[in-house]
């Protein structure tokens, strides 16, 4: 079957790509657009390493088909910093040493940003349940939760 031509918006830019119908949005981001910040940890929606925003909603890009992105807005980790300025979440992840190997970090940041957009003042429990779809094997989550709570405080006072 011929490849599908898809036009979409990624991190504010209009993007066109060709993809097989069975390719996931994650496959397209990584292998067609070379946006490899979104990671594949499981390809089954269990680890959250591929988290992106689709029309403002947090999704696992491994559970979305590439063709489904047509005419929609995709936001990935590559669009999180503004020029030289890191997003407060990115800055707080660095300050709190909230990453060790760093493979889960993009997914956590995208998911945490989605949380803070909905809920600027979450409790520790709310942070923990919101991020329960993102697996981290290195940190034990302690410093991640602290970084998210600290970033929330900074963003509220900004």
């Amino acid at each position, binding site marked *: 079957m011929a490849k599908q031509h898809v036009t979409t918006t990624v991190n504010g830019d209009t993007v066109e790509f060709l993809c097989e119908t069975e390719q996931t949005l994650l496959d397209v981001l990584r292998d067609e657009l070379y946006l490899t910040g979104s990671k594949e940890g499981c390809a089954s929606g269990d680890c959250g390493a591929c988290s992106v925003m689709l029309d403002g909603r947090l999704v696992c890009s491994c559970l979305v088909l590439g063709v489904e992105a047509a005419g929609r807005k995709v936001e990935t980790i590559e669009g999180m910093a503004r020029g030289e300025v890191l997003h407060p979440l990115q800055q707080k992840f660095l300050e709190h040493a909230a990453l060790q190997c760093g493979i889960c970090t993009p997914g956590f940041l995208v998911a945490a940003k989605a949380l803070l957009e909905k809920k600027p003042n979450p409790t520790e429990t709310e942070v923990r349940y919101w991020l329960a*779809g993102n697996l981290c094997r290195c940190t034990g989550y302690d410093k991640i939760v602290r970084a998210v709570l600290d970033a929330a405080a900074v963003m509220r006072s900004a």
Partner: protein
Amino acid sequence: MNDMTPPKAAQQHLKIVGTRPLRPDGVDKVTGRAKFGADIHVPNMLIGKVLRSPHAHARIKSIDVSRAQALKGVKAVITSADLCDLPSEFIPAGEMMVNFKDMTRNVMAREKALYEGHAVAAVAAVSEAVAAQALTLIEVQYEVLPHVMDVAEAMQAGAPLLHDDMFTIGVEPRPAKASNIAKRVEFGFGDLEAGFARADVIVEREFATKPVHQGYIEPHACLASVSEDGQAELWCTTQGQFIVRAFCAKLLGMDVSRLRVTASEIGGGFGGKTVVYLEPLALALSRKACRPVKMTMSRTDVFRASGPTSGAKIWVKVGATRDGRITAADALLKYQAGAFQGSPVQPGAMCAFAPYDLENVRIVGFDVVVNRPKVAAYRAPGGPIAEFAVESVIDEVALRIGMDPIEFRLKNAAKEGTRAPYGPKLGPIGLVQTLEAARAHAHYRAPLKANQGRGVASGFWFNIGGETCASINLGEDGSVGLVVGTPDIGGSRASLSMMVAEEFGIPLDQVHAIIGDTTSLGFNFLTGGSRVTFSSGMALVEAARDVIRQLRERAAKIWEVAVEEVEWVEGHARLSGKGKTLSLAELAKTAGKTGGPIIGNAAINATGAGPSLATHLVDVEVDPETGKVTILRYTAIQDAGKAVHPSYVEGQMQGGAVQGIGWALNEEYIYDDKGRMENPGFLDYRIPVCSDVPMIDTVIVEVPNPRHPYGVRGVGETPIVPPMAAIANAVSHATGVRFTDLPMSPPRVLAAIDAQRGA
């Protein structure tokens, strides 16, 4: 050079070591820029895929690849015939041993498939879809054989035999019949019988643990490119690019100098990325296709065909007097090796009773093959299993004699000069300090409610040093580039840069750390054994001191004085008593006129890695209706020697504790009656998620390691040793039932509670 005198004066006035700067690779990792194993694409690249055995144990009668080969878009197909067969030869590899006869068979089945998921063939094609289709066209004729999964069953006479040439090592005389028992080990000393005769209380228990996977979030991935003249490049996610080079060169029959291996950023390893799986296959495919070949594992493949650590059966017997002195300790460990010999039973046996000062002790261990994936190192390999059993029995003995479990441990704690059960006398270690910190911690006195319990356990891990090379290159502007050969798995660029900046007395941002590929340095052993900050740090300190010596010589030349008159103080050469100084930048700028570029190299065999000891406290609540165990509070206390970057030391402690929580409560490999794994995904193999755990409090104790210039001990592995016993002890105290089998999942806990209630 290993006996580096710690700079005492410097130790007292540390400016950078012990602080918490931002890690130098951090921005790349929060922006998605960092390149991990699967994040690379090159022109003309093929995709490789592996055909895996559906059977747990089967003779491979034939493999017909002709139809796959003929499929349009397929550029290479390989089987075991494309890799070297190699004789049995044991090579020490850090905390584990490797055997190339087994390795070549593990990466590609030869005579038999020995576990479900065992690779039997591989293809490279123009796309993932074509490669997947090609796999369906490979015809393998199997003769399915009876399989054996359980360690005790595998040890019985008449059990299905995995290898007909396996005769137990460590037994005299050598057995006449082949068996699944690869090795017997024994450690200890004293008179057990006399020791137990003196005991007022003896506790004897059997324990069982399941295999658990390292669970790194990044699946194995690599990209190989072999040119027509046989020169090869390999990019891969690994804990050791030099080990990958050594293993792949051997399996492919190449000279190591023809193979350049670059380690990508690594998305977790925990020991599981110290071996090769896809890498030799990608090289063999690329060699055949003369095009670059990229391979990645699916999560299912990761579970079925990589890692895990051993499941085990353990028996422990400990005797003590009423006043709290252990009189004898005995243990029997039976570890699953998976399909090939090499379980971590030896290190497990060595550290089983290592936290204690014992007169009479024995540990016997068996390494047993079963039809499961070959185990790989997992964070303190072997230790957590043995100490889960030992620390559970220690807790029970303390309970039986009516002594506080910390007090009981303090009365028997190993310290400097204690003879370890595995032979040598221990140097300075921090067990007593961690126990005292635990006893003094507010956590230890916090009130508990109904259905809640508190557990304590300690843990020991050796840590290693090993072959290490490092370079320091002085830039012409005075910036300092350092190159190490140990992949940065959790912040070591930070800790290493900090020690170098401290040596030079310059700001941290003047130092830039690079992880070199295999052409940039001499051989380096891998990132493992908690050795990087210790060993690469030691090598860098040596290289830095060499550079500083040269800088002093250059300054002496400029000032026309003897080098002895020049000191190095805070990034400057200073002429003693004359007030003249030259900065690092000034000396670097004029280097061309004073003798040429300045570099420092070190090539060492790092020795003197001090063991790190830990004590963990945990509070749990057990739901009597469902059997679910909730972790309410957790405190990890550990001796770091010297915490170079305390945040990343805490991170190791927190991460290890939570991995241990998973091991204790949820994680296990589940197989059907045909030996097929039933839960090869993160939905059903459930590692702890954010909402499963509380904050993990940490206390860093610092008992300096005298063999390291900054007193460093490895810290990465010890944190996973105490959690299983600490949690089992807590659950036992909450329920009144002693839990001896892991994981303590809700059905198991509920069944035990119901049995006690007589339900």
